[in-house]
């Protein structure tokens, strides 16, 4: 690929600016970076959720590219309409991009997302995953991990937070035989940037699932957002991968994992976990990695 966008060459223009996201918000960084890569010809659709709540308060509107809020469930269906409508009125060289939270994607919006992928609509769907319904005050979503304390999965004597593992949305999306899907993290921006650029050039539906920690919901200092995102990859609870042409590829294959306990216990939402809980997560992680290493390709270059 020529003229790759890098930290050095990325535009100084801002497309998501002056918004009211909390200090250290990972989601707003994901949106900001995505729009910098896609540029002024991006038409963005954001459902109800933190990013629309902080960016679209009339008369204080924070997107300098065309942007619209969709219903909570309607990111993908509105994207479909935007893309078809733009073509119908003769607009060329644009990219319809969805920027939706984990709840808006994995739960209420999964039907519309599945429909759009099924039609192979020419859209890019980016899910910024902060692992809970943050905008409404940190409630459990389908992407909240096992053990996490949220306001609807409190931790107490009887129940230690969320009882269910995180839905595997990346592979659910891939199972549609989508043109391109990838996982990413704001803990590795060069990789995220590459994947947005790559996805934007592919015709048909593309999907990027980017982990974007939320200091408020995760219980971390506001200056540790990037660090915690990196730790999540390093301890093996997240992985950077792609799905293309029917094949999964692991982009980064760590030799050993860093301490899962250290990752978990540095966050308020996992503070209550005991060794047995942590062991459950470690076993799940190891089983997942065993399957990945058995079935997926690996990229040669280290990212």
């Amino acid at each position, binding site marked *: 690929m020529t003229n790759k966008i890098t930290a050095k060459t990325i535009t100084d223009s801002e497309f998501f600016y002056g918004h009211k996201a909390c200090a250290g918000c990972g989601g707003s960084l994901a949106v900001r970076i995505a729009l910098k890569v896609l540029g*002024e*010809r991006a*038409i963005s*659709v954001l459902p109800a959720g933190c990013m*629309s*709540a902080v*960016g*679209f*308060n*009339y*008369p204080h*509107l*924070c*997107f*300098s*590219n*065309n*942007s*619209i*809020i*969709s*219903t909570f*469930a*309607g990111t*993908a*269906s*509105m*994207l*479909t*309409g*935007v*893309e*078809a*409508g*733009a*073509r*119908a*009125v003769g*607009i060329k060289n*644009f990219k319809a991009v969805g920027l939706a939270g984990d709840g808006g994607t994995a739960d209420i919006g999964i*039907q*519309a997302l*599945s*429909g759009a992928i*099924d*039609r192979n609509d020419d859209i890019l769907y980016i899910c910024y995953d902060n692992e809970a319904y943050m905008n409404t005050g940190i409630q459990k979503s389908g992407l909240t991990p096992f053990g996490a304390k949220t306001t609807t999965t409190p931790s107490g004597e009887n129940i230690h937070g969320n009882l269910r593992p995180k839905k595997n949305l990346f592979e659910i999306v891939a199972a549609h035989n989508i043109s391109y899907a990838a996982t990413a993290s704001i803990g590795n921006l060069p990789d995220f940037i590459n994947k947005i650029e790559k996805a934007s050039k592919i015709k048909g539906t593309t999907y990027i699932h980017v982990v974007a920690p939320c200091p408020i919901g995760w219980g971390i200092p506001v200056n540790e957002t990037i660090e915690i995102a990196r730790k999540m990859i390093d301890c093996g609870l997240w992985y950077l991968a792609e799905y293309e042409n029917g094949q999964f590829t692991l982009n980064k294959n760590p030799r050993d994992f860093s301490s899962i306990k250290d990752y978990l216990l540095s966050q308020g939402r996992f503070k209550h976990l005991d060794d047995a809980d942590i062991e459950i997560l470690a076993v799940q992680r190891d089983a997942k990695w065993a399957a990945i290493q058995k079935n997926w390709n690996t990229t040669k270059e280290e990212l």
Partner: protein
Amino acid sequence: MTKAFLSGNDAFAEGVRLARPQVISIYPITPQTTVVERISEMVEDSSLKSELIHVESEHSALSCAIGASAMGARTFTATSSQGLLYMAECLHYASGGRFPIVMMNANRSTALPWNIYGDQRDSLSQLDCGWIQVYVEDAQESLDMALQSYHIAENPLVSTPVMVNLDGFVLTHTYETVEIPSQTDADRFLPPFQTENKMSLDNPKNLAFSVGPDNNMEFKYLQHKAILGSKRIIEETDAKFAEIFGRSYGGLTQGYRLDDADYILITLGSITGLCREVVDELRERGEKVGLLKLRFLRPFPSDDLVAALGSAKAVGVLEKDISFGYEGTVYTNVNSVIAKNGLRLETYNFIAGLGGRDISRENITAIFRHLQTGGQHVNFIGLGMTIDD
């Protein structure tokens, strides 16, 4: 112009074809299905050049139409009953965002109990969602209102979505001879869609935003004013339509033998035809009866009602609807006009046709008798018993 033998749905599809929508989102539900089937065939044989999108739900059907409309494209979708209710969130979204989408609704009962036949509880339960609501009577009016609705919705002073209601089966599946206008005439009537309320690369916008308590009322006030203002646009549209096609529907309402009428029956939709016949029969016997068909429920035709009912002794509202625990919604609306304008006449409500129950000629004759003799205010027709007020 050509003539064809068409069902209400087929006729509506012809109207949609002539309106040249650029994006159409479709999802099937009985008794709307044949309209989306016809449209699919039209796209296949290129008589309609449009982006046809097979969405995965009615919520998505309308969400998709909103997205396309926000890019400045003319859009169409169609639904019925459970589907209309499923898209409820998007109904408010489309009207609040001032997206002039046109949607056909095949009026059908709503579950539970399940029932696929016609009544009007689906659309009347959505009366407050900010859409202009039209109720048509026959296949010709279906076709004509498909065209007229775009003309009304897209007027920049209106910029509001329009829902055109066809009684399920009785109208959607009944065949009649219909005049199909030429594309040239249709194009003369309906210019291409133009709007400022859209995103474009030359003039980027942020749409569908949040508005807090400090400005929210202003947005809602303007929305209300636009729908009230659409009354004039509806009449102008009908006049322009008459000029080009030679057919006129009279705007918000259509009266029948109202001069000197003491007893007036208010109807909506396909039952109107049979009611007209009963009016003729009774008139032949010298009875002073008349009929007022409500074509639009939003905006509500208050002025027309005052003019039509001013000197009547009693008025009845026949509707396929009940607001459980009170009375028919149309009746409530009519009574409000009567009270506000100090009209002095008796009013009666006739709830009929729920879940597709037949409404007979005898039923309608009995309704006129009730208007003449007086009696209970809210009446269920065809139940074989009365319910105390």
